[in-house]
């Protein structure tokens, strides 16, 4: 037995190169390429169809989302993206942003007024502007907290509370997210129309960037009603808000995903629309939360007096002079007190 096996091996080793050489010779001699033998395997075809790799019609008596699909190939990809990309990287991003904020605060401290408070106040934000701001802020905080619970709760909160208590919390978070969420684009819409005119480009905005917004060095960077940093916050809020709202509506109302599948041939399965929406929604939402961390830090902790403008509507004259000099000059010039 052993000898014959060796013989076969030796024979193969000798003949195989000869065969290859012979075959390549005949291929070269022929005029066109050799076509593969067309002998499909019916079993293989069935399994290709089962895995959705062919456009084979599949039907079922059961009504439901994607019920005629036997094997959903994309689920594993989405699972990997959510568990191995979104969760760790989203968590890292938020922690890094908080660390940067802490470092900036430690190095530059709160930016107090050089001249101290003047005791005289001027109007900064109208009732409408404040209503729109806090309407949006309240919705945002509810959605951010409930969203973070749903995203990071399993690794962070289950070890603390246990599964049963966390399940109750997460159920509440889901319902808050589902029922408050649809109001978000309304708040974004109101914010846009209330504040867009004050957030357009003005002369001097580029200079503000060149000076790093006054973050470095002693000199104050000249600014109008909103400084360019605040303008960027405004426009990012509008654009991130639109994307997060559109994907959120898809996730919240299954009928929209069904409509997308029925309308756009690019999407063949309901759950693929949901998976894509979920990934975009999560990425944008985490970036949005990081942005708002920065906004809250700057307005509440880094530049004292800013929050007061959004709460009472009035700011100290020296605050206006030192942080929004062009707006202050404008206000003094027109003396209207209109915000």
């Amino acid at each position, binding site marked *: 037995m052993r000898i014959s096996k060796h013989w076969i091996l030796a024979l193969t080793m000798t003949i195989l190169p000869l065969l290859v050489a012979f075959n390549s010779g005949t291929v070269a001699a022929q005029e066109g390429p050799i076509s593969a033998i067309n002998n499909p395997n019916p079993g293989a075809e069935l399994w290709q169809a089962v895995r959705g790799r062919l456009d084979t019609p599949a039907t079922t008596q059961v009504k439901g989302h994607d019920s005629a699909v036997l094997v959903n190939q994309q689920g594993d990809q989405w699972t990997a993206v959510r568990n191995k990309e979104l969760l760790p990287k989203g968590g890292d991003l938020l922690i890094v942003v908080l660390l940067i904020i802490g470092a900036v605060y430690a190095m530059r401290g709160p930016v107090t007024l050089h001249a101290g408070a003047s005791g005289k106040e001027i109007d900064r934000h109208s009732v409408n502007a404040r209503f729109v701001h806090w309407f949006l802020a309240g919705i945002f905080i509810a959605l951010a907290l409930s969203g973070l619970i749903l995203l990071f709760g399993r690794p962070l909160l289950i070890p603390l509370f246990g599964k049963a208590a966390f399940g109750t919390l997460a159920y509440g978070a889901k319902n808050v997210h589902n029922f408050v969420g649809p109001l978000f684009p309304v708040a974004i819409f109101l914010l846009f129309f209330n504040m867009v005119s004050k957030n357009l480009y003005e002369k001097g905005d580029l200079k503000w960037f060149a000076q790093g917004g006054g973050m470095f060095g002693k000199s104050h960077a000249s600014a109008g009603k909103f400084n360019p940093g605040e303008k960027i916050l405004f426009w990012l809020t509008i654009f991130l808000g639109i994307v997060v709202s559109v994907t959120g509506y898809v996730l919240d109302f299954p009928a929209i995903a069904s409509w997308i599948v029925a309308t756009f041939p690019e999407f063949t399965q309901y*759950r693929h629309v949901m998976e894509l929406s979920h990934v975009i929604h999560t990425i944008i939402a985490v970036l949005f939360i990081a942005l708002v961390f920065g906004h809250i830090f700057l307005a509440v902790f880094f530049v004292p007096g800013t929050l007061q403008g959004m709460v009472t509507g009035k700011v100290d004259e020296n605050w206006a002079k030192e942080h929004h000099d062009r707006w202050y000059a404008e206000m003094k010039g027109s003396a209207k007190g209109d915000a």
Partner: protein
Amino acid sequence: MARMKFLCDAERCIECNACVTACKNEHEVPWGVNRRRVVTINDGEPGERSISVACMHCSEAPCATVCPVDCFYTTKDGVVLHDKDICIGCGYCFYACPFGAPQFPETGAFGSRGKMDKCTFCAGGPEADSSNDEFRKYGRNRMAEGKLPLCAEMCSTKALLAGDGDKVADIFRERVMYRGAGALQWGWGVAYDKQGVKG
């Protein structure tokens, strides 16, 4: 310990949907929810095949890895079950599942998802075996009564097999050997083996 598995023999399934019906009846599954379904490929064409599919009780279950509240668990028989008291009905398991097993009754406002429902391999849930609570949430616990899933038990052509994975594999292997031309070589028996029987 036995590792429970489902197997549907596409050569035998005749799309009678009795497994679907039996499952709904046995577990009194809510309206609009089907724990099992039969999918037919190439319906009415040569090469038509039907396959009955439900939760396959995966080894590394994708549903369990994406669940934000970690409500899934695997029994010592390898059956993947979930706790409806913890489930929040987010739908992630449905996005992750290769087989479309998780189902959601549209009980909430605006047709929003209720708590997930899926095939339990007739093994109930975390509640006490055969209790009323268990039946209400998960259906009958046949495993606790020493019985196998009803869908497979009553399958008229024995296309659907359920039970210890080794035994199921043995039965299927025997069938494949008897057919003599691979598991699913449709048409080969007719074309090359007129007797229909081959060693």
